[in-house]
């Protein structure tokens, strides 16, 4: 099997099974604080969008 993104499929089901119950910023923040979640590292963001994909030499 080799597929690329969404293809027409009679068995296709929506990605989100609970569409009307989207997470909010507040709920995410409360979970992060209460759980003590740290993850591995932050996501890097910059006005220089190419830098977000890495810098050859810093």
């Amino acid at each position, binding site marked *: 099997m080799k597929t690329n993104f969404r293809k027409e499929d009679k068995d296709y089901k929506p990605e989100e099974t609970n569409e009307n119950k989207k997470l909010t910023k507040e709920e995410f*923040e409360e979970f*992060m604080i209460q759980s003590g979640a740290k993850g591995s590292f932050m996501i890097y963001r910059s006005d220089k969008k190419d830098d977000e*994909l*890495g*810098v050859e030499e*810093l």
Partner: protein
Amino acid sequence: MIEKEIMLQNQMEQIVEKQHYVNYDEWIKNFSLNLEKIWEEPSARALEPSDTKTNDSAIVIGRGPSLKKNKHLELLADSSFKGKIICSDGILIKALQAGVTPDRFPDFYVITIDYAPTYRKFYHDPIIDSYGSKIKGIFSTIVDPEVVSRARDAGISIHWVHLLADLHLGIKSFNYITSKIIRAKKNNIGLPAIQSGGNVGTSAWFIAWMILKCKNICLIGINHGWDEDDDWKKIVTHNGDLPIDIDKNNPVAKKLFPKIYNPHFKNYCYLDPMFSLYSMCLKEFIIRSPEWVETVNCTEGGSIFGERITSEYFIDFLNEKDRKQ
């Protein structure tokens, strides 16, 4: 991605960033204690192949639940794959135990990006000592020195990278200052700086194309989600990492841990809040990666599918590689 989702992703990233700065002093301490070795040991750039025409395929191994469920390590160990193996640190011991070793796959790498001292356990095993001298390690400059030291003692050759954190803040940023300190004794030659995407699996995907110049990158064990039949406690606690308990029937739980359908493999997985973010970011970066990068997800489940991601059964990927080699 619709505007609301982009906004939520941005907000989630800002919250995670705030959490990470709690450990800023640890980054500084680790960097300082690593500095002599960073000056002595090579940059990860030294691993860049001189001939990009050969060995341009890599298999990135995460430690998602699909790995065990689908026996992917065993399949790989029995294959004649000739490309690069890039292990995330947390799966290295199990990979070696399953026969995915540098004796079978000589172009073998392991990645550690995190600052936490607990990661030493990923290198503290006799099997690491047995194979260490044949493994190339890529470590961020803020990894705990005890972790790097254990890997080094096992014979793993250490190569350094920066993790991008705050370079956008300019000359007062941690990234800028540490880069200047490193260059001061390296003939002004710097290190590559990678986007982590928040986790070692995404970092490994970045390293595969950005540093190792692989054009064809296969992912296994990169679920960024939990299996439908995983224990609820395992899902809620991120496999025991988080001291938290949330009732499955709590309405907020359904938002924090959405169940999603993978249309390619026709199975479901649960996200947790961290995997929601990691998944959104990795999918975004795959879309934004150079055109020559092909990402093939052979995890056979999980949340990584969509634009510019080819979904394929791992056995088919291995057989296809067999035919091409």
